[in-house]
């Protein structure tokens, strides 16, 4: 059983954090394939107004339980060496990264399947809420498809 990890990050996930995470894996030499998903905040146009940021909130305890369950299920289903999930809380501007999923395995095929499974399950099952803030400071609420 893998131990619980912190998933939530305050504000956007920086490119240097992602680079640093890749660098940390250079000592794990049984790995032959990494696969990374980065979710970026989109400047959607909704009823003539442009989204300039998303303010993320979560039912944090339930979300952490769900992330943990997703990790366990992913390791059961796929032969991965390791995986990391980070999600933003608070304000993330359009163009910035709000979700970083990183899976690694000896060979590539399983990383594509695992990555898709993890990202789809996060979107469907984790209680995270997104307030889409427009340039005029009014807002609407994002809903995942």
């Amino acid at each position, binding site marked *: 059983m893998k131990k619980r990890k912190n998933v939530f990050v305050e504000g956007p996930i920086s490119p240097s954090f992602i680079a640093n995470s890749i660098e940390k894996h250079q000592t794990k030499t049984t790995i032959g394939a990494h696969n990374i998903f980065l*979710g970026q905040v989109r400047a959607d146009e909704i009823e003539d107004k442009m989204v300039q940021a*998303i303010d*993320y*909130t*979560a*039912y944090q*305890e*339930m*979300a952490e*339980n769900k992330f943990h369950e997703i990790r366990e299920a992913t390791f059961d289903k796929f032969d991965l060496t390791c995986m990391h999930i980070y*999600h933003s809380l608070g304000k993330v501007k359009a163009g910035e990264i*709000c*979700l970083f999923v990183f899976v690694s395995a000896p060979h590539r095929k399983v990383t594509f399947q695992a990555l898709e499974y993890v*990202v789809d399950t*996060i*979107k*469907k*099952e*984790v*209680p*995270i*809420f*997104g*307030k889409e803030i427009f340039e005029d400071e009014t807002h609407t*609420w*994002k*809903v*995942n498809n």
Partner: protein
Amino acid sequence: MELKILYFGMIAEATNCNEEEISLQSGSTVEQLIHKLNNKYHKLKDLSFNIAIDKEISDHSTLLNANSEIALLPPFAGG
């Protein structure tokens, strides 16, 4: 019994608070709670949400008890 209810996202906006205590008869179900909340907050009727009891999504026939942590969760938007 007194129930602690948590609200999130657009639901918290409709109720204008993040949490509160609601009193219901012992042995009430999720459905009875929703009925009470719909009467208190008319805007709720137009919103879509799930109810989590002790951090698990529950159906409307589930029995509530005073120790349960109840949360109204609007559609998810992670990622």
